[in-house]
């Protein structure tokens, strides 16, 4: 078996609440190879960010609880690492762009101070950097994200910059010392559509240039279609469908994936799309069955009591849904034929 860059196995990330554990991430499996680009798609609150924050172990320690699972980075389990090893991974191997550029930068330090710290800690083993070298590296990174007058930007405080500029700074910070893996957590969400588009193009260009692997988290299928090679569809803490981008758009299998696709508004009109009825479930008392079952239009008895496993339908296309198991198809056919006779 070849070595994956990142291999998440059966990861569970829960949060402590007064009512009990909120089982937000419930057994996620995900792999990415060096230099590849994947997308994780799902609606808000379905555990995408929690999964990725588990990778860097930056979840709030007071609340987070990881009962099971492994996160292997080059075959080393991040969850079992000591603080010093973890620091090395954070400094050298993985970086993450937050979905909230305004919240991600510290309001009382200048952009320069913050970037300098990232640079000097990411490179401290190699060579000690003086102020001049730091500035040169930072200026180059800011120029890479197409912000004019980088020297002035370094002196600015975050509140003096626009949302788009802040997000560019965050991207610059994430790529200033190139890493093997970049996790971009909905980098366009807090921005308006035109800026969003620019940010995505920029991100793709930079990732290609630096040959970094990318995990792109988003709730919009339209965004990932442009950016990534493979898509993981996530619902309520479970991966429900995995396929290459083309395959997924050609042949979406899981009812949730189809629902998501219907949600993308078309410029040709047709009014507001039907969307998916209901909302993300209660994580403290989750259903024992498929977590999508309360909202699924094709729900059957088995869906409510048993968890569907991942089925390989086609090469590289897997789905977790009872609709594609043999027994279900059999039962479904019978019901349909009964319906026809009546």
């Amino acid at each position, binding site marked *: 078996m070849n070595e994956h860059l990142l291999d998440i196995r059966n990861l569970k990330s829960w949060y402590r609440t007064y009512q009990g554990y909120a089982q937000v991430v419930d057994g996620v499996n995900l792999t990415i190879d060096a230099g590849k680009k994947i997308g994780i798609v799902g609606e808000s609150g379905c555990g995408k960010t929690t999964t990725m924050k588990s990778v*860097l172990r930056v979840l709030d320690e007071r609340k987070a609880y990881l009962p099971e699972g492994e996160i292997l980075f080059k075959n080393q389990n991040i969850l079992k690492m000591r603080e010093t090893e973890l*620091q090395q991974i954070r400094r050298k191997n993985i970086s*993450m762009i937050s979905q909230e550029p305004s*919240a991600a930068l510290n*309001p009382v*330090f200048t952009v320069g101070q913050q970037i300098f*710290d990232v640079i000097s800690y990411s490179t401290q083993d190699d060579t000690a950097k003086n102020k001049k070298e730091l500035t040169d590296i930072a200026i180059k990174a800011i120029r890479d994200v197409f912000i004019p007058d980088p020297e002035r930007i370094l002196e600015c*405080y975050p*509140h*003096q910059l626009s949302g788009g500029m802040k997000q560019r700074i965050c991207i610059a910070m994430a790529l200033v010392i190139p890493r093997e893996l970049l996790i971009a957590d909905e980098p366009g969400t807090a921005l308006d559509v035109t800026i969003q588009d620019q940010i995505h193009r920029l991100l793709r260009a930079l990732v290609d240039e630096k040959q970094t692997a990318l995990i792109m988290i988003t709730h919009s299928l339209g965004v990932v279609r442009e950016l990534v090679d493979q898509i993981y569809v996530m619902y309520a803490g479970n991966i429900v469908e995995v396929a290459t981008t083309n395959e997924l758009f050609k042949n979406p299998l899981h009812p949730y994936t189809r629902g998501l696709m219907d949600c993308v508004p078309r410029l040709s009109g047709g009014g507001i799309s039907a969307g998916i009825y209901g909302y993300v479930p209660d994580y403290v008392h989750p259903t024992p069955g498929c977590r999508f079952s309360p909202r699924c239009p094709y729900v059957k008895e088995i869906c409510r009591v048993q968890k569907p496993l991942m089925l390989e339908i086609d090469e590289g296309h897997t789905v977790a849904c009872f609709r594609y198991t043999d027994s279900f198809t059999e039962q479904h056919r019978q019901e349909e034929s009964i319906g026809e006779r009546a």
Partner: protein
Amino acid sequence: MLFIIARIIPGDPARMSLGPRAPQFAVDELRREMHLDKSLPVQYLYWARGVLQGDFGKSINTKRPVSTDIKEFFPATLELVLFSGIFLIILSVLLGLLAAKYHDSLVDNLVRGLSYIGIAIPAFALAILLLLLFGYVWQVIPVLGRLSSGVDEPLHITGLFTFDSLITGNFTTFFNALAHLILPALALATGPLFQEARLLRASLVDNMGKEYISVATGYGLPSHVIMTKYLLRPSFIPVVSVMGMDLAALMGNAFLVEKIFNWPGISRYGMNALLNKDLNAISAVFLIFGAIFLLVNIIVDIIVASLDPRIRLGARS
């Protein structure tokens, strides 16, 4: 304002100064001398003219010019308050950081319990307690006055004994003065110290959940850098304003502590003046306290502005 408050306190200062058995003509004579026979506005004009020339009048209590008294007593209080302030700042930041770093653990609860006690205990009660413990039970630190008898006063430069003895190289006096300072300064600082520690802890814990902290952690910055730089600075802003108020209030709160530790300070002097209806002294002390309160608040505003760029730039534009 302060002047009027001092004047409308009941009682005849001239009579109190001379005692109950003084003849009436002597009292009337003194009243004339102090301009107390004139109307209030005229009295004020006399007083204001004096103050502008650096003359606060004469104290009927000490029978000396008030300005001489202030020169003698003010440095003692200033020294006490300065040390108290240093205790306040250092200890509250340390305790706040400690409680926040180990929040919801034994350390946090220990600091919390200690804080409730510290806040609840009035400064004078603590002062008496310290006096008892260190003056009677253990006798390790001197408890009364600014210097032990037999230790020479340092050359008068600023009037702060520790400072003066240090720059003149008189280390015996320096350590003696320092030892005398510890207990009163601690007694004075305790209440506000714990309040600030609680405030800082709350602010730190609140900011710990902020995205910028998890981002900084995600870039592998060491936790002590995050704690003392990325977390402390934004969290310190709300604490500084309250701390400024408390530091300014130390001056006024000092009188009971000064009384208990027999500290020859301005707070004690002002209190005596108030009880004896020593008008000129009262007005002068009030004026000084007011000026210091203002000064401290201006300094606090400058510090807040230097910590928080949002305020700084807002003011300029």
